[in-house]
């Protein structure tokens, strides 16, 4: 968290600072200029420093960070479809669970190495995502939320019924030795947690870069168009069905990746424990609080859904932490409608403006979300 706020300070000093006078406009920095690169480099160094610091932590704290990283990946996936395309999903817990169980079942029943199950988990979640995307072709908004809610609710029950494969209600335990880090990694079995931390960081980074590239590209524009006005999007040649189906599939695959990592992290899988619809709600909360349609939002969201309950439970017992969580959530919805990342972005934009220097006026795909383009009435949501 602190590093994220720190990121503004180099920018501030680099731009000679507004020194208290808010009336002067933001300092303009050209994209690609030397100063821009410097700021970017400082941010990267800070981020890398934070990650490296995480690598030296005690097992418990590091485990929490790993967990936050896994949730960040899951929320990145959710952001892809719920944030950018506007398809509300409450049931992404099902993808998390599907990814986790794919890894668990393959490792336990079919003697695969944990790492090799990741592509399989992502593939299966991709396909299921396509299937779940089908209702989204006809149903939108609240109704789609209900369909995904039903998916999230049904998932544990389905897992329980496939007891032969999944261990049913008793759960599925992956023995620790089965999660031995691969030899080339240089980590020993005793350093499994370290290995998982770094694996999560690498996966998070990959997911981040891949999704960012998609979102800033042509396909990302199509996604935005579909969210804002389907009819206009279709009229300008966007294939709405493809966009919706693919975004659900990609989103499912990324959240499935998180699920796969989660299986390695947690070791024993209970459908009624980690993959109920409450987990789906947690992901959605993480996304909204972190900031929809921002690249940093999911990471902030991941940190929050892991650490906020942890610290609030210190204050007043497990139940009261839920109350505090709810109050925090409502406060974010009221005070920072575009989440923490969006709110930070707005503050930063008051101080520094990064000029796109792109003749096509293309989208920025910014870390903190886009600068507000004329908040046109989104006629798509009207009826």
């Amino acid at each position: 968290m602190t590093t994220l706020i720190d990121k503004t300070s180099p920018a501030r000093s680099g731009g000679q600072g507004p020194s208290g006078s808010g009336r002067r406009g933001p300092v303009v920095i050209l994209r690609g200029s030397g100063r821009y690169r410097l700021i970017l480099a400082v941010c990267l160094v800070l981020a890398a420093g934070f990650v490296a610091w995480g690598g030296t932590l005690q097992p418990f704290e590091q485990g929490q960070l790993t967990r936050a990283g896994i949730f960040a990946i899951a929320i990145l996936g959710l952001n892809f479809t719920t944030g950018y395309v506007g398809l509300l999903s409450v049931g992404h817990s099902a993808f998390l669970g599907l990814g986790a169980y794919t890894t668990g079942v393959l490792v336990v029943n079919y003697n695969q190495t944990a790492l090799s199950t990741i592509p399989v988990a992502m593939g299966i979640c991709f396909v299921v995502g396509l299937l779940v995307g089908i209702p989204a072709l006809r149903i939108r908004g609240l109704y789609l939320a209900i369909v995904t809610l039903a998916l999230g609710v049904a998932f544990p029950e389905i897992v329980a019924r496939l007891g032969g494969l999944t261990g049913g209600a008793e759960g599925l335990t992956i023995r620790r030795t089965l999660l031995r880090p691969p030899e080339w990694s240089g980590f020993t079995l005793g350093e499994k947690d370290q290995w998982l931390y770094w694996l999560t960081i690498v996966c998070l980074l990959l997911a981040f870069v891949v999704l960012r590239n998609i979102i800033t590209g042509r396909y990302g524009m199509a996604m935005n168009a579909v969210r804002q006005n389907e009819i206009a999007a279709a009229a300008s040649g966007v294939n709405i069905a493809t966009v919706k189906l693919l975004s659900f599939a990609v989103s499912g695959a990324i959240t499935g990746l998180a699920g796969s990592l989660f299986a390695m992290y947690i070791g024993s899988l209970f459908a009624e424990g980690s993959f109920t619809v409450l987990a789906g709600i947690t992901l959605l909360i993480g996304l909204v609080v972190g900031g929809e349609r921002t690249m940093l939002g999911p990471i902030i969201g991941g940190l929050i859904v892991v650490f906020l309950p942890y610290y609030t439970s210190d204050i007043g017992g497990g139940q009261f932490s839920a109350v505090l969580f709810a109050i925090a959530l409502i406060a974010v919805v009221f005070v920072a409608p575009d989440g923490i990342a969006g709110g930070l972005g707005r503050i930063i934009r008051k101080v520094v403006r990064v000029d796109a220097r792109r003749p096509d006026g293309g989208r920025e795909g910014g870390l903190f979300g886009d600068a507000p383009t004329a908040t046109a009435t989104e006629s798509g949501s009207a009826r």
Partner: protein
Amino acid sequence: MDIFLTRLFAGMTAGSIYAMIALTLVIVFRSSATINFAQGEFALFTTYVSWWLTERGWNIWVTLIPAVVIGFVLCAAAERFLVRPVRRRDEAAVLIVGLALFTGLNGLSGTIWGSDDKVYPRLVPVSVDSFLEIAGARLFYDSLFVMGALVVVVGGLTLLMSRTNLGLQMRAVATNQESAGLCGIKVGRVFMISWGLAGAIGAVAAAILVPILPPGQLGLPGMFHMLIFGTVAAILGGLDSIKGAVVGGLSLGVGLAMINGYGSGLGGSISLTVALVVVVAVLGLRPSGLFGSKRLERV
């Protein structure tokens, strides 16, 4: 035959409860076109209040009065102060507020009354022989009571809707908010009262269902599944139709009882999965449900 009837009675009992919850969702939806995901947790909270009062020696029936009042006030206040300010923004914001209320109210109940299960008394005391025998099947009095309660609630609502000025205003708002405003109707006030009404009915429904549905005790996780079934019932009937909520609730209850009864060879309960299939099928094939008006979002 008697097994069939037994299952039918069980299904209708559960269905009446689903219908009552569906009614609360429908009343809210008709006014503000949202689903209150925290509806069950409001009811949970009022039921805790009711339980707490019985522990202090109140008669269970008397405790319903404060429960209903609190249900009304809490829901109305939630609409006015938490939902309405974000309503114009987007659906996601409303949904998140609902989820926050869901989490917060559950936590609040837990904070005040603890997370252990409570024994909640029945509104009608039953003994082993308090049943009617119909063609060899037993119809317990408390099942009759549940169905009777549904009849009373639906009857009351129907009268309210068709005979009173408030009902007229609620119907006007449900049909066309803008025109309702142009008639001089205070649309915001109708929203608030609708939410309150849903909260009040929810309080009654929860007091009836808690002792009957497994585990038969008052606990924190109890209401969520009920809300899911209520939602499915409401969607099946059409989210804006009172008649639909009743038919949807009863069909869901009876349908699940039959599937779980006759399909027991499948092993275990598959209620939620069936509910999932119903939701997807209804929204895919006939988004307005059995009785709803055709105004769902589609492109």
